[in-house]
């Protein structure tokens, strides 16, 4: 039986803003490149940017609770600054954040990690703090995209091609937020492991994955 291999075509786009529609953007840039049987992968951050979820920190005034609570998460994480924590409070409410903190303390006592996000909301793990996204958004905090399932379904309807929204980094970590089918999710997880979205100044937020028999 022939094994499947994948080829990824990263697609450079214009600088995406909240004025763009993610479905139309994806349709336009994949036209003539993606066909049924392929998978279109859209970067999580770009989906969020089109939803107006890129926030300049200067526009946020952290409250006392955000300032206090932000001292506790790991310093390399995305919620270690008062501004990012204030946005987290805005996302899920102060009650969930405080419950998450209590769960986190309990987790530390029993030697387990991740309780904060389990209780406060997994969407908070999708927040990218400053320098987490490509130019010109490197000075923004990027929240996770809203309704990713709806976005991938709409892309499928507009293009006829399976779609996923993916969060990929350079340490071979691929998180699929939404997929139009379990198979497209499996394909994307395997094909995106080397981060074909690129990083930093490369503006390739869409990747077309083509399967080949070898």
């Amino acid at each position, binding site marked *: 039986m022939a094994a499947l291999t994948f080829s990824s075509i990263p*697609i450079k786009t214009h600088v995406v803003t909240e004025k763009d529609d993610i479905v139309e953007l994806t349709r336009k840039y994949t036209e003539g490149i993606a066909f049924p049987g392929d998978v279109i992968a859209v970067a999580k951050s770009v989906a969020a940017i089109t939803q107006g979820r890129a926030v300049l920190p200067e526009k946020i005034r952290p409250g006392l609770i955000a300032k206090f609570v932000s001292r506790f998460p790991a310093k390399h994480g995305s919620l270690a*600054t008062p501004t990012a924590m204030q946005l987290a409070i805005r996302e899920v409410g102060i009650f969930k954040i405080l419950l998450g903190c209590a769960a986190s303390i309990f987790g530390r006592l029993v030697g387990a990690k991740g309780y904060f996000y389990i209780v406060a909301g997994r969407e908070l793990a999708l927040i990218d703090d400053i320098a987490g996204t490509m130019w010109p958004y490197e000075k923004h905090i990027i929240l996770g995209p809203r309704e990713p399932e709806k976005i991938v379904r709409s892309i499928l309807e507009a293009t006829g091609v399976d779609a996923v929204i993916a969060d990929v980094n350079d340490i071979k970590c691929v998180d699929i937020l939404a997929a139009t089918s379990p198979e497209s999710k499996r394909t994307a997880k395997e094909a995106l492991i080397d981060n074909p979205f690129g990083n930093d100044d490369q503006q390739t937020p869409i990747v077309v994955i083509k399967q080949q028999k070898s």
Partner: protein
Amino acid sequence: MAGQRFTQITNFWSDVFEKDGRQFSRVTIESTYPFSYQLNSSAANVKMLIRKALANIDYLRTEVYDGLINEFIVEQTEAKNVTAEIFLDCETPFTVDFSEGIPARTFIVFDRTRLYDIFSPLKIIIDPGHGGDDKGGTGPVDLLEKNVTLAMAGQTKIHLDKYGAQTLLTRKNDQNIPLRERFNLALSSKADLFISLHTNYDKNPEVKGLSVGYNPAAAGSEKLAGLIAKEVARKIKCDIREIKKDSRLTALKKISGVVVEPVTISNYVEEGLLRNPHLYEKVAFGIFNGIKGLFDG
């Protein structure tokens, strides 16, 4: 190579790579199929006309500034033709290469040999500021200036060493070296340049941006400071806050010396930028370009 199928240009970028111990600049154009093209080159300009092609973006100008390639523009010039135009610092030999596959890749490769001619005669002292019990500034979250200066200095050394510069670090690890010893290293080794790396710190958390201080006693220092400020700012896309005389550097006597503070660590946005290792590479590239500007013809 003369693919006749209609192709779509999907991606293009530039990088610097090493082959057989030599450095090259490369522009890569990715497309759905290989394409046929016509090349025109003049003094510092290479123009590739790609036939039977559609670009995914009608017009895109990409800043490179790698010391050789300044920028390139990809443009849909006619209904079925695309032009890729590369603007160079000076006339440079180049080759064109291909790799088939999905996507197909076309490489325009430029020889960076002339940069060795500029850098190999230079002796450069690279000084990571602070160290040991002298932490320097502390960011609002947790970054320490002494650590980020060491990382920036390391990247700068790597960059300059590639082109044969003779570089010396004033410290290689977390130790506090007195300023006098740092300057003495430059004087005793008869260095051409002294590049000190720091970050700014200010009690006002709103203060941000790049600052470069220079040795007012050395001819060329002010020019070097201006060039480095311009090139680093262009690379990391930040504002130049100030270029100023730094009287401490007069201890270097006639050696051109600068203190480069690419960002302000006490500003929490700029502290965040320091968490991205790509920033250090960009700062190093900016310093490299600034030095090149001073010594290039």
